[in-house]
């Protein structure tokens, strides 16, 4: 039975209690730093921040319903090669799953990192977060979001709801973390349950001397109903997107606002290429080529290769898509990229029986093969 402990919450402020917990972690000799979202300014997005001085944890807010970017890529950068020091990273479930994918792709390493996963109730996309904040102080807003200041926990605030990716996310609980902060179903004004989910987490928790509890009461049930609701949302979203993109023309229209800025792939945690192939010389066409293409049909949309880009990205990354929604978040023209990707990913992941982030032992589908598989893919036409 895994160790479960609790963090005592004083003054109805779980954020402060979590800061205390993180300080405790940082005080542990084995941990050199903590990557955690920190409110660097009073009214801005909390940004992933690498903290080495526990004094600087006063801005940390692991519960903020903001998701400025997927930290998986950042953590990859922190763990690639050997830094010599172990760090802890406080991550959302989708960030962990993305990070696991990156580890499989040799972009990062789990060797010297302690993953602290936090149950995720969802987050606003970057523009909506500002609306959500309104005039409130960011910490207050966080507490409000979790229903700690008057009223029920509800994701709609100031007329905005959490990102559609979060609404349809069926993974609110962290997988493959070392330590899980189980806020789902917890009485956050009293205490926060913390579970060790690996040997490394076990060792770490035992050093903190926190009081043991039986288990996180009500967490499973809360998660269950949350997931059920989100799956309903997800399926509706998939159906809707399918209907919107059923033909190539529909897809073009769906993507008509795309300006080939490639922000979606920059924001994507699993798009790990240093430089996207669409940015390389391969797509530096010659003037006469453009002319020839234009001549074939009488006109040529510039920039070119838009659908080609999106389809290629689907081919490359859809099996690793964790549905974090950062693509949509990053799109300057509001294209629902996440919806499109998740719709494709649902099919590709199912067909290879692959779930990104589920296990390090599962190789990315296109990096392996079996001799005796997918016989139906091969046609015997003659």
């Amino acid at each position: 039975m895994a160790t479960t402990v609790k963090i005592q919450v004083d003054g109805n402020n779980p954020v402060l209690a979590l800061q205390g917990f993180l300080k405790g972690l940082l005080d542990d000799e084995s941990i050199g730093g903590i990557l955690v979202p920190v409110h660097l300014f009073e009214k801005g997005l909390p940004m992933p921040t690498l903290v080495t001085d526990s004094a600087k944890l006063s801005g940390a807010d692991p519960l903020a319903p903001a998701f400025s970017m997927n930290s998986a890529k950042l953590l990859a950068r922190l763990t690639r090669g050997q830094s010599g020091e172990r760090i802890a990273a406080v991550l959302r479930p989708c960030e962990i799953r993305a990070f696991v994918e990156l580890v499989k792709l040799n972009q990062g390493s789990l060797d010297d990192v302690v993953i602290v996963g936090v149950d995720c109730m969802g987050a606003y996309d970057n523009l909506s977060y500002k609306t959500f904040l309104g005039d409130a102080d960011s910490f207050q807003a966080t507490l409000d979001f979790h229903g700690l200041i008057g009223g029920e926990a509800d994701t709609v605030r100031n007329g905005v709801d959490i990102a559609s990716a979060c609404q349809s996310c069926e993974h609110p609980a962290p997988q493959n973390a070392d330590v899980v902060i189980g806020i789902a179903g917890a009485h956050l004004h009293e205490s926060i349950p913390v579970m060790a989910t690996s040997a490394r987490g076990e060792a770490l928790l035992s050093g903190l001397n926190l009081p043991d509890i039986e288990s996180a009461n009500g967490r499973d049930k809360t998660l269950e109903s949350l997931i059920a609701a989100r799956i309903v949302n997800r399926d509706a979203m998939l159906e809707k997107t399918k209907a919107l993109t059923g033909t190539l023309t529909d897809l073009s229209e769906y993507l008509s606002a795309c300006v080939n800025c490639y922000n979606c792939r920059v924001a994507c945690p699993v798009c790990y290429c240093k430089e996207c192939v669409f940015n390389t010389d391969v797509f530096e066409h010659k003037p006469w080529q453009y002319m020839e293409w234009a001549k074939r049909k009488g006109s040529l949309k510039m920039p070119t290769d838009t659908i080609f880009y999106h389809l290629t990205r689907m081919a490359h990354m859809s099996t690793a898509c964790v549905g974090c929604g950062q693509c949509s978040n990053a799109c300057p023209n509001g294209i629902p990229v996440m919806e499109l990707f998740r719709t494709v990913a649902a099919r590709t992941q199912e067909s290879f029986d692959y779930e990104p982030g589920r296990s390090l032992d599962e190789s990315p589908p296109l990096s392996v093969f079996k001799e005796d598989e997918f016989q139906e893919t091969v046609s015997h036409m003659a």
Partner: protein
Amino acid sequence: MRKQYGALVVGAGIGGIRAALDLAVTGHKVALIDRRPTHGGILSQLDHQFPSDHCGMCKMLPLMSRDSSSQFCLRKGLFHDNIDIMLSTEVAELEGEPGKFFVSLSTKSPLIDPTKCVSCGKCAEVCPVRVPSEFNAGLTERTAVYLPVPHAIPNHYVLDLDNCQRCWKCHDACPTGAIDLKFNERVDFHILVVDRDPAVETMLKDILNELNFPLHCVQTGQAAVDMLASDDRIRLVLVGMNINDMDAERVLTRSLELNADIPVVVMAETSQISTAAAMVTQGAREYLVKPLEAKRFVPWLDKLYMRIMSDTTEDLEVGAVVLAGGFECYNPVVDPEGGEDIWSYGHPGVLTAVEFERLLSGTGPTGGRLLHPGDNSEVRKIAWIQCVGSRDVKKNADFCSGICCMFSIKEAVLAKKATNGAVETTIFYMDMRTSGKGYQRYRNKAEHEKGVRLVRSRPHSVIPVNDGMDLKVEYMTDAGELVSETYDMVVLAAGARPPGGMEKFALTMGLDLNEWGFAQMQPYASERTSRLGVFAAGSFGEPRDISESVIQASAAAQAASRIIKVYDVLAGIESEPEPEYPDVSREPPRILVAVCTSCPTLEQTVDLEALSRKMSAVHSVCKVISVGATCTGEGWAEIEKGAAEFKPNRVLIGACMPYAYIPRLKELGRSIGLNPALMDVVDIYTPTFVLESEGQAEKEVFAALSMAVARLQGADPVPVPVTVDVARSALVVGGGLAGMTASMAIADQGYGVCLVESEEELGGMAMRLHTQLDGSDPHKFMEELIGQVEKHPNIKVLKDSRVAISRGSAGRFRSAIAGPQGVFPLEHGVSILATGGHETKVYESGLCVHKSVMTHLALEEQLATGVLDAGALTGVAMIQCWRSRDEDRTYCSRVCCPEMLKNVLTLKKRNPDLPIYVFYRDIMVQGFMETYYTQARKAGAIFIHYEPDNKPKVAFEDGKPVITALDPVLNAEVEIRADILSLSSGLEPNDVEDLLEVFGVEVNEDGFYQEADFKWRPVDFLKQGIYMCGAAHSPRRMDETVASAKAAAQRALRILSTEKIARETVVASVRHSLCSLCQACVAACPYGARVVDLEEGKIIVDEILCQGCGACAAVCPNSATILKGFHDGPMMSVIDAALEQPA
């Protein structure tokens, strides 16, 4: 002057090709000849080879210096800079000695000019002749002018003069005038007739007038000789045997003296035939029997004329000769014992194995569908009958053909596959000889998974029943019941026979033959014939399957290369240096397009002017020129001229059969100073033959050309020569027979060898052998070998030592060997793993408990050392497959049956009345070993078959074994009381787990080394520069071990024989600035050619190991890894070009 070659390889089947390639890649010039008009031997007819049940022959092609050999399907053709292939060619004479053989070759002309033939097939359309097609094993017919195989390149028609009716329709039909029947040269073909009979003169004058040959008739020998001396126009002499001033022989002799090139034909009476035949051996071309009749004489003379005018001879000087003539299959029709009747061969449902193979072939009579040749109905029940013409003493075949068992299982599996399992397949066999690597598993799979039925019984005949609709097969069950079954098809596993004309060939080559008509080979050197310097490759010396043929071919190549090296055959002949080409990388592409217009079909279907106009409009095409006939010297000159005038930096040729041009682009490159990698040839003719609809061909041709233009636009113009300095010595692990043989083979060529043996003495497992079935003395052989190895100046022997570490790649490894004297560091270019095997240790059936129980090896030892007195024994029992071919070890150990026979024969020799009982499953004695089995039976040993689910039971009474087992023939339990029980314990590979780690190689499920490809690269590891041999590869007998060791040495010499290994055209590289180091490419590379350098943070490509498959490029998401010649950019331009519609 005679053309010089390192070696002559006779026979261009799989053995010949392997031997030729092995010699060619070690830098030797090879002449590869075959008497057939195509290369490939029997494999050109076989589409499917187990275990994959398809073809993978291309894997034989060299992995290094790939550019100098063909890079396409090996069945289509073979090009290598060092190999000259001569087809329809035979050896007429072989003189001289090792190191300096003089060879005369005679080549039959195809009578069709290959430079003009465009393979349009118009000639065959008009040919009235129909004869059975050799390619389809007689299942279809061909014309007299025909394509020998459908897939070869260059694929030109040939005229089979023997079957030609001389209607000359093909000549008139040929659009390019390729068929050259020498009509115009007849007036210069003067014929001298010497005969006293005036009737002959009158008749000949009549005939020859019509044929346009000038005729000179004389009545005396003297007049003939005078005329020959004075008139140099005479091209043929016909001499009658009735002249009386001198013997006809004398005329012949004088004629040959005056001009050996003038053929002399003897005209004899019936009574003089024997003298005439003798004259043929003295040099006459042939003899005719009088009276001459115009009906036969005219076609004869016509054909003789064409042969004389067209056939050619060539004289070579070669260092060594490799014979790879293969074998022929038993033909029931020509069996004097009447095989045709017994097997109802001739009934459309009765086929030989090769015929059946053709029936399943895509290029066969049914296009690959399994249909009955009689009525094209679906085939429902097929029986295979094994040992037809093999293991048959009465057919002078007291040998096992060795290939048929697996062949038949494969065919049954293929039949199942072709019918989705619907067809019922039954194989009738005597012993199912599955003693090769993985064969038992293949059999088990066929039997238990695919549903192939195996019946141990030999049907005596095949009888058509039901008005010939069905075929009745009767056989005995073990229980003694006579069973009669009907099939709609019966396949005869026709065994091997010596190649046709073997006796004459042996005479020409000076070879001894064995009693079955195969070449006599030497003990412990199965590649050595009775003539020094003449070696046997493939299955020439003994029928063998593909894998063993390939090993044998490499062994023969090794023996030949040793001769070439020792006699320094090609000293002084220097190879041409690689030319340096100007760097055109900074210039924008300028492409010269040359369109070959030699064949009228192009002009008929394509508007050349419009095509030229459209092509000129394609970007970066600088000029489009039409060339008369590209494949001729003139055509080539036109391209050169065009290149000089328009100064292109890329050249595209549109012609027929691009494959044939690829080797010639090198020449063009030299002459116009352009890297051949910047040239391409595309086929623009096939669309003109195939497509009927208007304008369609033009579209296709345009697409083909513009796709090639797009490819050339992106061709990488900068060749970066990367070379590896080769450490020219070898590391051989294992000092047994295999390791020592391989060491000697390498050391004899002048390279250093470090031989590492883990035991304290050299010798290994073979030291336990005291006798051999062929009577040779293995002990003496081994002692001599050990002596040679230990004395050899190039071999360093490290005993009691182990390889601790080995790093690096082909050409340059660094290893450390730990021994009693400490650690010995070594730099070497290649490694050979010959770690051997051992007798399996199993402790049951009283072994190690009762003195009366021992293994075959121990029995051999006791008999050899005299510990055991055979005369004092009253009964001996032996059990075969004791722990082989079952769940523990699903393979046949191959050595136990011969070992058992050896002991049986020794015991019987010493005590003829000694009862010997051998319990067996299948007696595995392939090839000529079969005869010892016959001898053992004759000597009175009793062989009792048992099934694996009812093994003999062993009990002991007073320490003596009592064996009880079911005798299936008596259907009764027999109880054998013996003094001695000898067990075949089988052979296991030695434990090499540590070496797998050290060398980065793998073993298969049985613990034997995993080769790169079972059939085509049997002694190579997948990792280049490391080779395997001996019992660590598979269970092998001594001569087979030697062959594998020589083969491994030859493969290793490929690397050792060069100072530097050059980089290839098609290799992958990494654009580090784009690379995210995800290492997907490292995992995808099947050759281990990629490593990640953590310090540098780079993926490194080993360009020697890289084979250019592009798996890395496809798996790289952002094209950080690229394959030369297949960059993303150009590839997408090609796709664009393909889809472009000309305006």
